């Protein structure tokens, strides 16, 4: 097992990740390949029709470098068609296939971070990826985006 895979495996077995699983916030769909695991995050059905979005991660160099992820169609095992990406005010900026159909526009996404050091690092330090972070930060960010009114539940 590669170092990135063994660290990710350890984080998937850790309390912060399992606490999210236990309360239905996220889960693992497939971790046969730990560099490219597929996970899901629960979403408000007003933003995500199916109630959850599947993400295929690229965890190469994890956690020294941030992961990147794109919405995934688990039935065809390929990228989710742009028309099926989450929609709505809090989600559309992050889930923006017009910007990049292979990544999320997020401060914890390796692809999106490039060029945003000056702005995002100071604006949202809790989401700006650090090597000390775990996959839970990415999942929490997506969960917040997809559940804007979660406090009402």
């Amino acid at each position, binding site marked *: 097992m590669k170092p990135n895979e063994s660290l990710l495996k350890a984080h998937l077995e*850790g*309390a*912060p990740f*399992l*606490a999210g699983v*236990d*309360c239905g*916030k996220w889960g693992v769909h497939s971790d046969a390949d730990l560099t490219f695991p597929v996970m899901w995050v629960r979403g408000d059905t007003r933003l995500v029709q199916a109630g959850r979005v599947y993400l295929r991660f690229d965890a190469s160099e994890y956690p020294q470098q941030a992961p990147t992820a794109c919405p995934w169609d688990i039935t065809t095992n390929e990228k989710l068609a742009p028309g099926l990406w989450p929609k709505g*005010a*809090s989600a559309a*900026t*992050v889930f*923006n296939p017009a*910007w990049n159909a292979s990544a999320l*526009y*997020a*401060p914890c996404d390796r692809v999106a971070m490039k060029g945003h050091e000056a702005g*995002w690092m100071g*604006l*949202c*330090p*809790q989401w700006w990826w650090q090597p000390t972070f775990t996959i*839970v930060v990415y999942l*929490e960010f997506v969960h*917040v985006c997809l559940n*804007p*009114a*979660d*406090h*009402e*539940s």
Partner: protein
Amino acid sequence: MIEIELYVHSPKGGEPTMVEIGVEALVEDLLKKIHEAGLCDGPLEELVIFVEDAEEPLGRGHSLERCGLRHRHHVHCHKCHRIRVAVLYNGVEKQESFPPSTRVKRVLKWAIHEFQLKGADAENKVLRLADPPQTELPNEAHIGSFTQPPKCELRLCLVAPIRFQG
């Protein structure tokens, strides 16, 4: 003895740690285990354990089973019995005391009610630390995780979440 896993929250950060313990163990035993593992600092006799969102701490002499603790329940170990929370919104401050095991989402709900926010104004609000690093608090986190004893106070701002612009 049947072993259960508990999510333990403490002033040492927003994320829980898993602790494994027998269901027949006493709350005192759980406190010792948490203290020995370095998950919660301070004199052992001054520490208390709350069940998530509970109003009162658990009795030290009670068994976990009697306290109703089950596999993967969330508890909070803290020195403060109550946290004095001040929430700022549009220059106005509201205060209330909560147990350290109170989830952020409950405080958020209270704040939205106190500031009489409705409709679109009530939607999509978050609580952020008023002081640096001004971290946005996750809804499932416990407020005690952001309060370092001996200080039993927390100052928060009720704000709209940051939007990422292209």
